[in-house]
């Protein structure tokens, strides 16, 4: 086993220990793992199952049930467009279409090939007063128009460019 994997495994065990190795804490454990890796790698799920004395099927079952868990890596910027009722009647579909176009996401793919952006919809952010709204990582942006949403992406792209240089 290489050093990288060993470090990864040690960290997972630390999370499991912190939660008292309790199977009831499976969800908080997976949340902590996902916070670290930004997704749930398959081998990690098996490891968590073994550490908790659960079957891998049970752990996979939980990981695939809840929409916040993801088994595939997500982009650096996770953009979630709210499609709650309030945002929907204020035409959040326009935001989605504009950003899909802007990020050139075709054939139902959600993440850009450069792993910079992932575009998703979410049922409700509870920011209904600001409809239509979207969240970029943890930052909420409200009262958007398709133009404003595209401008936000441009700004992120500019920031990325500056970082590269």
């Amino acid at each position, binding site marked *: 086993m290489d050093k990288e994997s060993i470090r990864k495994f040690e960290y997972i065990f630390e999370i499991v220990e912190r939660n008292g190795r309790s199977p009831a804490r499976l969800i908080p454990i997976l*949340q902590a793992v996902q916070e670290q890796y930004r997704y749930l790698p398959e081998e990690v799920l098996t490891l968590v199952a073994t550490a908790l004395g659960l079957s891998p099927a049970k752990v996979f079952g939980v990981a695939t049930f809840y929409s*916040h868990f993801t088994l595939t890596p997500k982009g650096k910027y996770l953009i979630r467009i709210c499609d709650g009722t*309030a945002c*929907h009647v204020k035409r959040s579909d326009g935001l989605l279409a504009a950003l899909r176009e802007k990020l050139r996401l075709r054939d139902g793919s959600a993440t850009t090939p450069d792993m910079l952006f992932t575009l998703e919809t979410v049922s*409700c952010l509870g920011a209904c007063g600001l*409809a239509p709204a979207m969240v970029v990582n943890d930052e909420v942006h409200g009262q958007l128009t398709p133009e404003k949403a595209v401008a936000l992406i441009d700004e992120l792209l500019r920031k990325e460019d500056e970082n590269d240089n």
Partner: protein
Amino acid sequence: MTTEKLGLEAIQAAYHKKASGLTSRIIICAGTGCVANGSLKVYDALCAAIAAAGLELTVELKEESGGTHVSRSGCQGFCQMGPLVTILPHSILYTKVQPGDVPEIVEETLRAGRVVERLLYENPAGGRRCRGTDDIPFYTRQHRYVLKKCGIIDPEDIAEYIAGGGYAAARKAVLDMTGEQLCLEMLDAGLRGRGGGGFPTGMKWDMARKQPEGKKYIICNGDEGDPGAFMDRSVMEGNPHSVIEGMIIAGRAIGADEGYIYVRAEYPLAVRRMRKALEDARSLGILGDAVFRSQLSFNLQVMEGAGAFVCGEETAMIASIQGSRGMPMPKPPFPVQSGLWGRPTVINNVETLASVPLIIAGGAAAFRSMGTKNSPGTKTFAVTGHVANTGLIEVPFGTTLREIIFDIAGGVTADDETIRNDAFKAVQIGGPSGGCLTEKDLDLPLDFDNLQFAGAMVGSGGLVVMNSGTCMVGIARFFMQFTQNESCGKCVLCREGTRQMLDLLDDIIEGRADSSTLGLLKDLGRCVKKGSLCGLGKTAPNPVLSTLAKFPDEYMAHVEQKYCPTGRCRALVKFRILPEYCKGCMLCKKKCPVGAITGEKGAPHEINLATCIKCGVCIEVCRLKAITGA
């Protein structure tokens, strides 16, 4: 073990002493809405500007504090006008404040005691500027009971909560009242569950209390999943201690010593504030192994959800806390009999729990003096959609929709955001479990029973107003998509039935429906309601059945004439240029991506429907509104 009471009074006195040296206080709304509009930047700018102006600034209350106290609050409800800045004791409310406005506020208001007129709220009906919450119709027509302190107190300061009388009700419950007395008090008050069901809280508690001695649990349901509702988020963010206090009282009532606060994962700020509040309460001995220095212990922890709407259902939530897939179980046994880890468990909604300390403190009779006979008290509603003032409001039960939509929320807006009250079409209440109400229901006094009777439900209190440009079939499809997506898959009728209903709605919207579709949709809806275990499936067909009943003509137009009266259903749209308005400016012709528009400059153009891909660009670019999709 000492019997001396925990000194809430000493904390109160210390807080008031510290605050007595202050000359003014500025409260900046730090609810999710205002933060998104930049209120934290306004906070930083204010602190910097006050210090730069050489005025005394207090950020954290200490002995000898003086000058201006700048603090952050939870959601003040008037989200549309954020960031909101309240200045006390002048009782001024500034709206849409940006960091650039800060120097003027410091110079004019703080130093000179004058009002900055341009930052005041301007009543769109009449253009009058309102100085503060006591003359803004959005606030004056509300009755803020549960939300009273939300938006005033600093949610991260337990001393301020205690200074306002907080935790006295919990202490009284723990030290001076029995479980039976507490249950009776709730029954007398007639408090009903605010999460949607409307089940009497006292009855629920009493059922759990009467279970055999032993481990019992109390769970706070903060898994507010209904799209279009955010009152629980606002309470958890704005006044987290009121929820904890309610849980202590509930725990005392049923004999529980442990509890969970289940918060939706989409609410990171609520999670953080609840955790901080728990920690502060623990350090003061309000939670822990000797609650208020009694022999009782009561421990709480926050459980963060992982994104599953169905977990708002009691038995699914229990499964989720136990670390499993959140799938509901058949009832009975009810959670009050066999809940978390098979033990008696009471699950109450956030708003219900936040009402509890107020009832214990003010008495059942005072609570009954608000609202209607069968639905006493107040209810928060999240008013959103096509209204002038979207935001969070609280009114006594029995208030009519007309008052809420036209007085408090400031009227219905058309698609161009202007106020056009005749554009009102419908209001959807109760989210994906609820139904639509129309013009003729506007004078209905809102309460649990009336709404049920009218074919909607209070639900969690989401109230989405829709104008005449909204397609009701589209709205029904929107909710169906939501429940289809969120169905956990356990019951066949919910899993497959919602899928089929969604397909039928797509047929209607995309012009494939025939004379059998609507009947099939209705039948299927009734089957899904009957054949599902939990509330999700039992109520999933409601938005469809309710719109079918209230807007039959709109469905028929889609099915028979393949025509959407609002022009919102793209597949049915037939774009057409109105020759009487078209001046032949060529703009649409230039923008059309498929060259479907023909015509000479200066003469009315035409759209070739065979080539048109219904992208809608022409409608967007036409300055003369000469193109119609209806």
